[in-house]
Structures are given as C-alpha cells and as structure tokens.
C-alpha cells in the first residue's frame, strides 16, 4: 500500500509538473538517441485520461471515443502491461515501484510476457491448454526441455504474414523473432468454451457465435479487462552494451534446423502490437509500439533528421556491398513483382540485413499528436526513472473504429471495420518490424475483419471476432469432439 501511495504521489507530482511546464527541456536522462529528437512539443492531445505510471490496466476508453483518448489508453495499456510481473501470479508485481519501471539490464518478464503464448493455447490434436499461469514450463512443442521461470522460447516464428514467408534481418545479421500472446480474459473464453478445438469452434460460431469478452458484466466469468492480444518482435542483442537501451529478456532461440540446439541469449524488444477489446471498442483498439532506434521515416531521411544508429537501418549503407543494394524494405518477388528486391527469395541469406524505412511517419498533427504524446509520456516516465528503458519506446499509432458496432452471433467474414481511424486510405497503422513489407497496403482491420475460424472455407467462413488465433485450432486426433482432461 505504501508503494501504491508513493506511486500515486509521484504520478500527481509528475502530472502537475507537466501541466505547468508544457515546454520543458528534453529530459536529461534520455539516451542520446531520444534526445536527438528536435521537436519539443509535449502534449496529451487533450485526452480525458492522461497516462499515469501504474500497473492498473485500463478497462475502456476514457469518456468519449476519440483519437486522443485511444492514444492515451494505448500508452496506459503499455505502461501497465510492461510492469514487472510476478511470475507466480502472472500479474504485475505490486511491490515494484514506479521508480523501477523499465529498469535497465533487468530481464525479468513484464506482465504481458507471462501471458499464454498462442501455441500454448492452440495445440496439436486440440489438446487442452494448461491452466492459466502454469508454473512448470510449457515446453512440449518448443524443443527446450526445462525452461527456467521467466525465460521464453523464440524462433518458431520468424516470418511475417501475407508475405510468402518473408523474414526481417537486422543490421547485425540477426533474424527478428516473433511471439503472440493473449491475456487471461481471452484465454478463459477460449478455454472454457473449448475453442482450441476446431470442430467445437465451428459449432460454437454457428451457435452463440464467437464474441470475445470485452470486460463488461456480461463476460464477468472471463475477467474484467477485456480480451487482449500481443504480438512482439525481438532481436538478439549480442553486444551487452546495448542492453541498457532495450527491454530485455532471456530467451532460448530455436533454429529451423532441428539439429541445431537451442541457444540461450538476451533479446531486446523492438516492436509490440497491443490490441484490446472493450465495450466501447467492439472492433478492438489496435495500438503498436516500437523501439525508437528501429528505423527512420521517409520524412526523417528527407529532412536528414536521422538518429545516430538504428537496428534496422544503416546510415552508411553502400549499394556496392549491401546484398539488397540498400533497397528500402526489400520485398520478395511475389510481393512486389515490379520491384523484386529479394532476388532469390526464399533462398536469399537470412543474415543479409534489410534496410528498413518507416513509410508512414509518426503523426504530429494536433488532431493525432502521437509525437507530442510520446514526449509527454517519456517525461512522465523520466520523472520516476530517468534510466528507464521505456524512454526508448514510442507509440507509433492507434487504429480504432469511429463507427463501432457489436458483431451479431453467427456472423461471417468480412466483419465490419467500423469506419476506422486514422483514415486507412492515407495513413496506415503499421509496425516496421512486423509489417515491414506492406506498410502501405493494409491496416489492422483491413485484414482482421476477415479472420475466420479454423479449417474454414476462405469465403463465407464464420468470423472469429477479428482474431487470427482461432484459425490455429486443430481437430482432435480421433476426429471426435471430446472434452479432454486438463493437465
């Protein structure tokens, strides 16, 4: 309780400071890369609930649906879910004060990292998942026999969707590694209704319909937060001097070649999608965050406002020596036939770096002042922990539906996208580490509105409430629909 009070006091002080000093100088504790930013606009964009440093996850958009309010909620989600976790409860460790938020060189898992990984829920033969916050390590499909608590296994997923298997290599020759997790509300819903089984999914979709919990009383048996999914991108950080700039974790990296034994390494978080379904957002709120040193934007390049270093961009790229001749966001031939920049995909070497460029610069207009909000939140964080690694993470953008609508039972794809904002025609919400190769072609709901249940026909399939995870469900080995005993 004392910690909570202290946290609240710190937050109040920080908020007061920010409100009184809207043009304060850049925080001294920022790493050089952040401090290199030239703009000085600090703004919450007029959101009704400015972010605070707390582990309490927001249950919905504050007051009214607006870009400013979803932007602030996205940051609040990020802060709460990146609080250091208690491994035993898979919730925030409430003994960790705000002054330790994002402490460098701390590889302890944060809250969302303790949530179920998708493969732990949707298993072969429709096997029931282990209970929430299973403590004995879930290693069956991971080829790592005993995972220490708080460690993770990466490497099973190294390609991006809808790209014919394109991968992303950083400037150090490391493959980007992906994982997808879901929170307890969504897990409970899937688990209690046995939706990890494809045949049951089909019956369920045709009956009550897949309607993921939104945190309201109607879904009380599943939780009060609302359904959340997380997609994270990581890179191995071989140089320990880099660890202080990243949210780091310990991970076993498994190789596609099963003969190669897993390697235990330190990885750094480079990207994080956070989606959250609430009563006010039945089409979910789609937020994405990135490490500030991932890649410059087209505007940064044009204005020559580059940072000293990037994980995915070489400031001194040499067309003569670069495998892809410094082509921005090189793509497989199938993705861009007119500009095939991965000339021998999929035989191109995994170790050849991709020159990544952000094609939708982060918005700094007053109506969607993501850049100003980032600075405001960094100042908030700095007040508590000037060394926080989260001073190096930025909200990229948030997509939300300005015409939200509940999804009727038995709905088939495509579901409504609910008139998403920002206008997806002109401003895509993408993460350069997860949608590297299609930054301009589709936005979150463009794809997810067509998310089907498992083993469905591509057209007219039952919808899975915007989640592609459901399509991972398999059928029981016997082919019969049985309710299996849980481990």
């Amino acid at each position, binding site marked *: 309780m004392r910690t909570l009070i202290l946290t609240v006091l710190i937050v109040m002080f920080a908020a007061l400071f920010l409100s009184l000093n809207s043009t304060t100088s850049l925080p001294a504790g920022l790493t050089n890369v952040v401090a290199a930013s030239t703009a000085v606009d600090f703004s919450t964009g007029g959101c009704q609930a400015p972010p605070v440093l707390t582990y309490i996850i927001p249950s919905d958009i504050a*007051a009214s649906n607006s870009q400013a309010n979803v932007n602030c909620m996205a940051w609040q989600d990020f802060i709460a879910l990146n609080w250091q976790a208690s491994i035993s409860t898979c919730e925030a460790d409430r003994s960790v004060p705000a002054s330790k938020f994002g402490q460098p060189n701390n590889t302890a898992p944060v809250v969302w990292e303790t949530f179920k990984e998708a493969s732990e829920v949707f298993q072969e033969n429709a096997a029931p998942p282990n209970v929430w916050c299973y403590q004995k390590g879930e290693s069956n499909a991971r080829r790592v026999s005993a995972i220490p608590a708080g460690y993770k296994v990466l490497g099973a997923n190294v390609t991006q969707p809808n790209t014919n298997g394109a991968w992303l290599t950083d400037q150090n020759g490391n493959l980007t590694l992906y994982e997808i997790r879901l929170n307890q509300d969504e897990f409970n819903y899937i688990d209690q209704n046995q939706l990890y089984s494809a045949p049951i999914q089909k019956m369920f979709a045709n009956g009550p319909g897949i309607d993921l919990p939104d945190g309201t009383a109607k879904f009380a048996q599943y939780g009060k937060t609302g359904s959340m999914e997380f997609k994270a991108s990581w890179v191995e950080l071989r140089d320990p001097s880099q660890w202080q700039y990243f949210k780091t974790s310990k991970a076993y990296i498994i190789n596609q070649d099963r003969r190669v034994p897993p390697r235990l390494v330190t990885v750094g978080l480079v990207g994080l999608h956070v989606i959250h379904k609430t*009563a006010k957002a039945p089409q979910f709120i789609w937020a994405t965050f990135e490490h500030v040193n991932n890649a410059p934007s*087209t505007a940064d390049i044009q204005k020559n406002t580059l940072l000293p270093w990037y994980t995915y961009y070489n400031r001194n790229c040499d067309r003569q020596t670069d495998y892809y001749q410094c082509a921005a966001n090189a793509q497989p031939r199938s993705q861009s036939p007119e500009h095939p920049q991965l000339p021998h995909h999929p035989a191109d070497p995994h170790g050849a770096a991709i020159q990544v460029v952000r094609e939708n*610069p982060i918005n700094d207009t007053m*109506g969607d002042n993501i850049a100003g909000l980032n600075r405001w939140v960094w100042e908030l964080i700095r007040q508590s922990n000037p060394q926080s690694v989260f001073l190096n993470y930025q909200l990229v953008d948030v997509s939300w539906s300005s015409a939200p609508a509940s999804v009727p039972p038995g709905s088939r794809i495509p579901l409504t996208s609910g*008139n998403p904002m920002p206008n997806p025609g002109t401003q895509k919400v993408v993460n350069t580490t997860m949608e590297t190769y299609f930054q301009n072609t589709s936005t979150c709901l463009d794809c997810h509105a067509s998310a089907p249940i498992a083993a469905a026909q591509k057209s007219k399939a039952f919808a899975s409430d915007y989640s592609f995870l459901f399509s991972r469900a398999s059928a029981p080995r016997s082919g019969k629909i049985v309710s299996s005993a849980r481990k």
Partner: protein
Amino acid sequence: MPMDRRTFLKTGPIGIAVAILAARGQSSNRAFLEKSKDFLLSHFSTPANIKDLQGPEQALLDELWHLNLDAFTQQAICGNPWNKSGMANETYYYNPIHTLIPEGTQPAIVSWNAFPNRINQFFGAATALPSNPYNLPQSSIWELADSGFYTDKTGRKEPFPQVPKKLCPQADWRGGLHPFGPYGPRGWQDEYCEWSVTRNSQGKITRVDFVCENPEYWHALWRVNPAKVAQLYQDTLNFGLPKGSSSAVTVRVEDLQLSDPRTGKPVIDPSTGFPVYNPLNKWNRGPVALRSGASSSGGAMHLSSTPNTLQTELVSLAAVATVLREMGNNDPQELGCCSQNILPYRNSDPHIAQSINQLVSSGSSGSLVSVANPVGLYMQKPYFGGYSLPEDPKLPKGATAADCFQIVRGSETLIDPVSGQNFPGNFILHAVFQIPASWIEAGVSFTVGDIAIKHNGVTIPIEWGAQIVETFQIGLFAWRIPASAPQPPQACVTDLKQPQAQPIQLMHESLWNACYNTPVDNPAGVSINLASNSLIVPVQVQRGATDLSMVLVCQTVTLGPNGELPSLTVPGSDITIKATHIKNIRYVQPGHSFAADFQLLTVKVGVSKSARLGLRDILITNFGQPPGTPGPAFLYVAPDRMEGVTAR
C-alpha cells in the same frame, strides 16, 4: 426611405446594443468570480475569435453573433416537446453564459475525417457494410466527391446513383431507393467541410479552397457591412496568388446580393432596409472555381450544403445527443437511429452524437456538456506523411508539401478561456492548397496536380481535391462539467400520439417568398429552392413596428372544425402575432438533408413601443388544445424603431 448604413450603425436599434455590450466590459472573454476561479462565459465569441471588422462595427457583429448563439443554445435546451417523445427539456446541454464551468475543466475535441463518408459507403468498393451494389473504383469516388458526377467506362458523366431510403437500423438495399443527397450545388459535401477546385487550361488542379465556416456568421457579417464581406471574399479567393495572377477575381457587393426571381431586383431585408445576402452567390457556389477573367465564377467561402449549419449542429444534433438512451451509447448507428438526430453513415454526425452522449454518461454523477466557445466547426491540419513533391531544382531548401496548405482564415491554435491552455486542435476556418507564391517566384514550375498523395500504398498525383480532403479532419470542442445527478436513460424517440404545433422557422414574408421561389440547380436534378439555404435565426424587430408580414414554418399544425387557425402568442403581451393564412409546403428545413412536409402560416406581427427588449419566444397552439411550450428565441426586439422597417 431606408437610412444609410452609417447612420443605421450609429443610431439604429442594435447600435444601442453595442453600447450595452461596451458597458458590459467585453474586453475580456473570461469572467472571474470573486471567490472562485470557476468560469462563466460573458458572451459567445465569433468563430475562431475572428475579428473581420473594427471598432463599433466589430462590436455590433459581436453582439449579433452572441444573440444568435444564445438563441441556438436556448433552442437546443428546449428540444422538441411538440411532436416527439424523448427529445425535450435537454438540460444536460448547458448554456455557458448561465452555467459556471468549474476550474480545471479541460476541453475535449471531437473530430472526424472530412471526406463525405456516405459516398464511400454507398458507392465505394471498400469493405463498408452493408455492401453496396455499385463498387465504383476509387477514382470515381473522388470524382463524385469533387463534382457530383463520375465518368463511367464509356466516358459518360453520370450523376450519383440512387441509394436506400431506409437507413435504420441499417441501409436496406432491397427496399426503396431515392436520389443521393443532400442536394444543392455541392450539397453532397456534408461533413462540415466543402471545397472548390481551380484548374488550369490543361485541366490540372492549381488550387483547392476548403471551408468549414458556418453560413450564419456570413449572414451576420453582411448585416453589418456588406462592402467588407465583398472585400473579404475578394481577399480570400485571391489569397496567396502571385502578383498579376490571371486567377485573381474582383468581387462586387452586387455579386453577393439575392435577386428577386421575378423582378431581378435586389431583395430587401425588412429588418435592415438593405439588400439581402445570397448564400449561394456566384463566388460561393458549386465545387468548381472558374478563373478566366470576366467569366470567372465559383468558389468556396462558407458552408452551403443544407445540413451544414451551426443552428442545427447545436439544436438538432448536439443537444439531442445529451439525452441518454436505454440502449446505451456504444454503437453510434444504433444510438443515432434511436435518437433520430443523425443521417447514418456520415463520418460526422453519428460520431459527434455518440461522443457527446458518452461525455454526458461519464463521471460518477454524469456530466453536462456544451460546445466550447468559440462555437464552430474547425478544420484540422492534414497528415502530410503520404504527400510527395515532384523533384524540382528550383524548390527552396526544406520545402515540403505542408507549405502548400495555407491557412487563410482562423488560426492554428487558440487559448481555451477556461483552462488558459491551448485547445487540443486547430481552429482553421478556410484553407487553400496551392503552390506558395515564393516557390513560383523562385522558378518552381510544377503545380498542385503534380504533387502526389499515397492512397492505399499507391502514390497518385492530385487529380481531385477529395484526395487532399481524405488527409484531414474537421473538429469541434466540448466543455464537459459534472452533473449534480446522473441522468435517467430514456426510451428511443417516437412521434407523440397527440402532437402540438411545432414552430420551426420565422422569416419576413418577402424574404421567404424570394427564397422559396428561387430554384437551386444541383447535379441530382432534384427540385429544391433557396429557402433550404435560409437561416433559422431570431428575426429582428423594433419597438413600435406594426403590421409586419412574416411567415412561420410549422409542423403538426391542425385546424379547428371550422378551419380555425392555430393561435399565436409572444409571452409577455407586448407583441401581437396572428396567423392569417395557412398552406402546405415542402422543402429542406435549413440544417437538414432531405425535404419534408411542413405548414406555412402567414402571420402579422406588431411590437409595442414598450416591448421588452431581447430574445423573445413564440407560442403556437392548435385550436382546441391547451397551450404547450413556447419556441425559444424566434424574435429579437431591438431597442429602437428603425426608419424603413414598417408595414410593407
């Protein structure tokens, strides 16, 4: 004989109002109370706090505008108690000149994309549901938004295809269809943003004017100084043009006057004795600006689509949106159909209504909401992330496409008088997108049509103004304050089984006749008239005026068994008003999108020499019914009698 305008300004009826205003000490917009820092608005300000005039003229305009906004707000709170259930006594909308705003109140922005979403919804190939049968390509969608036509595969210009009449609970494509509206020279641009495109002889866009200014303001400005209005038109339409540009226009006062459709002579406003402003004049008409010397015409100076009025934004939309409904407010389509205050599938109204409803339902005891002062609709700066300029060695260093978006009227920022901090958005009233004159002087040879914007990943040269519109939003600001008690939700709006007569719009009869008999061309070819672009504002009368001929547009009027007309009164017994005749009419009520049936009462009005000054209500009572609720602020009694405003 009407007095000249200068005399009118000095000694006329509202000249005295200026003195009252000056005595009120309006130099500061903030009224601090002795013992608290709560805020009480002293007067409503002009949109974006713009000051188009100076000295006494500006003071006069300020007072006229304040009266308009006070009237709109009173009407908003009253709602519709006459023929609808669940739409009356909307007291969770508050009048900031009477209600204290607590210290610490922060403004909320409500914003939406400026592109007319119903064009996407009903004709586009995107994924909007329910699907439409047309699936027109994106280029046709932009062309429709720009011009009201699209070019089909054979090269033929086609107007908007027909769309469903029934839009609740969802668009019913299997039911009856009707022409796409709103009608009018650019009526389909109905997201509180309209634009006009100028092209060169090669057909390339050279300039686009974007406006979100409400028509009521320009009428008020005209009443004070028509010559200044003409000057502002000219200055605005010529803004940023290089010296000697052939695109420069000359705007005359006569260009802006309404002519009688029968005689061709200027229509005189009995309230002022001077010619009336024509909102669809040659420089504020349609989506195309022709700039070719003497035959130049067209342009955009303020909103002209019939639903794009400020009065309706407050009365029919914002205030109704403060009524909580039993079905909640998570679904704006459902909420809007329930509250009957939106045209479904617009970007703006459903979202505005939902946002206000959510604001009212927020807080431990609920909230009251008012649109923040200065009340208005404001353009937000575009997202330029997808813009790209052609390569040109003459481009100044550091030049970007953002330099082409130039604010002509309004401002980029404005201080919120309550919080003392910047509002969280822009206050742009009129912007143009054109090549800066400095670029042209530096030798830059490309034009707007050579600049490109990304759409779904494809970089496309600007062929349509709509491509730019897609990149910005329109917004308004709201002040939410705590309510004393949560509002009990109400059922959906329905027609009352025993309706009373509803007063809607009062006008001088001569003005009405001129407007109603003036047809308005539109691409849809639907028969409409200028009355739909008239105003619902208090009609100014002077003490001592007698036998004034006016008309009162009404609904749900019933006659007595012997044809008895409804009775009319102005509470206070110092103004007489009597109906002399009734007839049925059909028009688009100003602020609405589609035509409906109304009754038009011809009335005679007399004002005693000692009549109470200020805004006055009108009560209309059907024969045999008990008196109902007066309609607020239909008249404004000015302090003095003005020569020339007598029986006509």
